[in-house]
Each structure stands twice: as structure tokens, then as C-alpha cells.
């Protein structure tokens, strides 16, 4: 898992150092292994985003009609987790209008389909900078110990619209 995690953190580091502004379509890579997925049937085709300006990523979506999902995704690769006790995320964020998000690791199964392992705490972003930190104890998450073709960290953003500034995201294992 260490290599996959290193790759994910390198991608986040790329974002941290970049300074871009514009719109991006669903599925289009923001950095290697980092992208936003949107329910394009719901009337949203792209999201506004900005990197730099003191933030890892500032993203906002104002859908004309709410879709069914909108997710921020970070690839975690296909390496095993068996040597680790936990997988954790630390996120600093801020949002002009309070918003919440759930986080999960999605495991894509060899036979098809996927299973989501949800972190217990909700990410809460509001007008002041705040830090969210949560871990998945792998011994309690059999889906994470089972073999998977691929795993992705998913942040489920509000499909009814959001404006959130991710100041930093760090992934770690122990």
C-alpha cells in the first residue's frame, strides 16, 4: 500500500504546487489519479476549479438541476493493505456556506461491482478553516483486506451544489 499511497500523495503535492483556474469535465484528471465525477444526467457537465492561491483545490458546482452524485476521487491503486493497521485522511478545508461530505474507500471487486468502506465521521466545512481527521481500522473492514482490482478514496460532495476550498489533503497509513 505504501507505493500507492506515495503516488496519491505525490499527485496531491502536484495540486498543491500548481496554480490554475478554469472548468473541468466529469472524469477529466486534475492531476494524475485525481478527478471529480458528476452525474451528468442531472444537468451538471463541468465544475469550476482553481488551484493555488493558498489552497490545494477550490471547487464549486451550481447545478441547474441536482444530479444524483458528485464525488472527488483519489486513486489508491491495487496494492494490498494487509501490512497496515489503519488508513487515515487529514483534510483542512473551508467553505463559504456550511457543507458536509462523507468519505469512503471504494474497492472494485475482481468479479465486477464495488464495495464502499465508509469513514465514520462526516467532513464538515464552514466559513472558518477547520481540520478533519479520521481513520479506517483495517481489521474492522474486511472489504479492504480482501483482494480488489482497484481502490479509490471518494469524497461524496453535495450533488445539490457546493463551494469548497480544500486547503490540504494528506493520506497516511500506520
Amino acid at each position, binding site marked *: 500500500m505504501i507505493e500507492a499511497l506515495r503516488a496519491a500523495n505525490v499527485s496531491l503535492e502536484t495540486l498543491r504546487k500548481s496554480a490554475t483556474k478554469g472548468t473541468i469535465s466529469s472524469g477529466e484528471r486534475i492531476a494524475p489519479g485525481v478527478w471529480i465525477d458528476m452525474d451528468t444526467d442531472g444537468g451538471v457537465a463541468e465544475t469550476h476549479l482553481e488551484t493555488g492561491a493558498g489552497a490545494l483545490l477550490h471547487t464549486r458546482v451550481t447545478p441547474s438541476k441536482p444530479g444524483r452524485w458528485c464525488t472527488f476521487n483519489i486513486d489508491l491503486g491495487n496494492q494490498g493493505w494487509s501490512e497496515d493497521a489503519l488508513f487515515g485522511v487529514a483534510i483542512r478545508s473551508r467553505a463559504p456556506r456550511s457543507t*458536509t461530505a462523507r468519505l469512503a474507500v471504494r474497492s472494485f471487486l475482481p468479479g465486477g461491482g464495488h464495495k464502499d468502506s465508509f469513514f465514520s465521521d*462526516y467532513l464538515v466545512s464552514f466559513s472558518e478553516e477547520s481540520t478533519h481527521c479520521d481513520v479506517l481500522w483495517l481489521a474492522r473492514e474486511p472489504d479492504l483486506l480482501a483482494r480488489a482490482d482497484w481502490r479509490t478514496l471518494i469524497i461524496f460532495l453535495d450533488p445539490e451544489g457546493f463551494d469548497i476550498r480544500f486547503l490540504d489533503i494528506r493520506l497516511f497509513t500506520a
Partner: protein
Amino acid sequence: MKLSLVIPVFNDTAGLSRLLGQIAQLGIASEVVVVDDGSDPPCRASFPANPVAGANVVWLRTDAGLGAGHARNLGQAAATGSHVLFFDADDTLSPEIAVLLQDLDGLDFDFCIFAHDDSRLLARGLSGPQEPPDRAYWADVAPGERPRLLSPDEASVLCRVSNYPWNKIWRRGFLLDAGVRCTEIPLHNDIEPHWAGFISARRIMVSGRRCAVHMVGTGPAQLSARRGAERIRLFEALGAVISRLENEMARDPACAAFVGPFLEFSCRLVDWAQTRLDIDEIRALHQRSHAFMATLAQSASPALADAVEQAMIDEPGLAAQFISVFGQVR
């Protein structure tokens, strides 16, 4: 009906424990969103993983302590049920709420306002709300136990009751579509959703079932006993309501029926607030109130605006003056 209960809490583990126990016993919620507004220690640590059997409990927390308005907005954003009931950790539910929810199931409404009891009256063996005007407004509308739609005339009466956040069951889609939310200020954050609901809703229901008990303590923690300049921020809430009134009146002139009640409410609130301010703060309050009243009167009619302009005097009794002016011009 899938009901989400949204509960802001701050350092009241005992109250929250009592309320979660009631929710479990009554079996009324499919989801409970508890928003810990910076309690120390965090409330969640005092509860088992799933404290309400049969309901999904979502725990949210901000360390910053941004107030009940912010907490309710946060809870609303996380709620997923078809309907939402905001409830306070220090108040209690009555079994009547379960019957009301059954009656409401399948009905089409934007929100349903229900009656309540007050702990101060219950202690004297009496029922209903504490404030005499509230008792009069409820008596005017005379709702039965079964929920029914309010007529526009009745809505312009019942909107005058105290703006509690916990006596309404909202359709979540209405909250989202109409942008109904609390003002994120330390006090008076519940003015906006109350008035926004009455102004923007097209299908308001009412039930005389007393579904909650408002628990009022007498100690220093009582919110209404708090003093200080933060009360002056009440104009942020009043201003938000005026903006909504103007927008809705442009769309539906019948909404002008709420101008009078809101003017009266605002005057009484300003009068009441100045009893909890120091002299310098009162001056600031008067400056803000004059500007506010002029804006509100202008939105109603030029004649009212002129009358209000002439009536502005820096003395207590603002409410009586403006209500009198409004009555003459109307």
C-alpha cells in the same frame, strides 16, 4: 414519510440523552442528525455507537462554536429524509408527535406548524404556550388535532406566534427550493426560517396537537437573558426577511399581507432587545432600527414610508409608535 430530526447541541449531554431516548421510544425518525457546536468534551463520546435504535444517527461537529443557526444549517445540509424537524436538545417531545406524523403521511404540504406546551405553565397545571399573544393567535386559528391547510388570512395571523425553530415539520424539498435557512448569528438566528416559511410556502398546514414541551429554565444559561452588542445583529435576520418579502411580493402581491405582521414583530423585537443593551448599544440599535423600519415601510407603500419617517423618535416604545402609524396608513 422519512423524518430527519436535526438537533443542535452545546454542552448539554443530559438533554441530548433525554431527547434521543424519546426519539427511540417514539420511533418517529429514520435519521437523527446531531450537530455538536463545539461542546467540551464532545457530546458523541458519551453515547453508544447507535443511540437510537431504528434510526441512522449522523454526528457532525464543529470545534469553532458558531451558534445554533449555523448548526441547524449544517444539519439541514446533511439531512436526507423527505421531511425535517429541527429540535433543541433542551426541549422534549410529546407522544402526540407520533400521531401527527401518521396524520401527515402522504399529505402534500410545505410545512406543518404544531402546538406545544410550556414547562412554566405545565408546572401550574396549565397547557399551551406561555405568551398571551401566542395563546390568542392560536385561539384565532382554532386548529383541530388533525392537520389542515391554513388559509392565507389564517397564515397572516399564525405567523405572529413566537418564532420557535422546533414547532414545524418541513418538507425538505421546500427548504431547499425556497432557500429557507437560519441566519448564522449568535442570537435571533431562528427569525428568518419562521418568517421565510410563512412568506414563501404555498401549502402550510396546522395542527392543534401539542407535540413538544418548551423547557424554560431560569438560570443564567437562559438564552433570552443574555445581554450585549451581539443582539444588534438581529438586523441581519430582519434584513433577510425583508429581502424575501420584496422578492415574493414582486411575484405574488398577496404576500403583502405579511408586511404588517412583520413590521409589528420587528418593532416589538427592537423594543424588547433594547432592554438587554447598554446605553451606547441602544444608540446603535436605534440607528439601525430607523434604517430598517424605513426600508420595510418603503417596501409596503410610499405613504407608510413617509409616516414612518416622521414618527422616528429615539425613545422607548418604538413598537407602539410604528404599529399606530401602520394602522393609520393602512
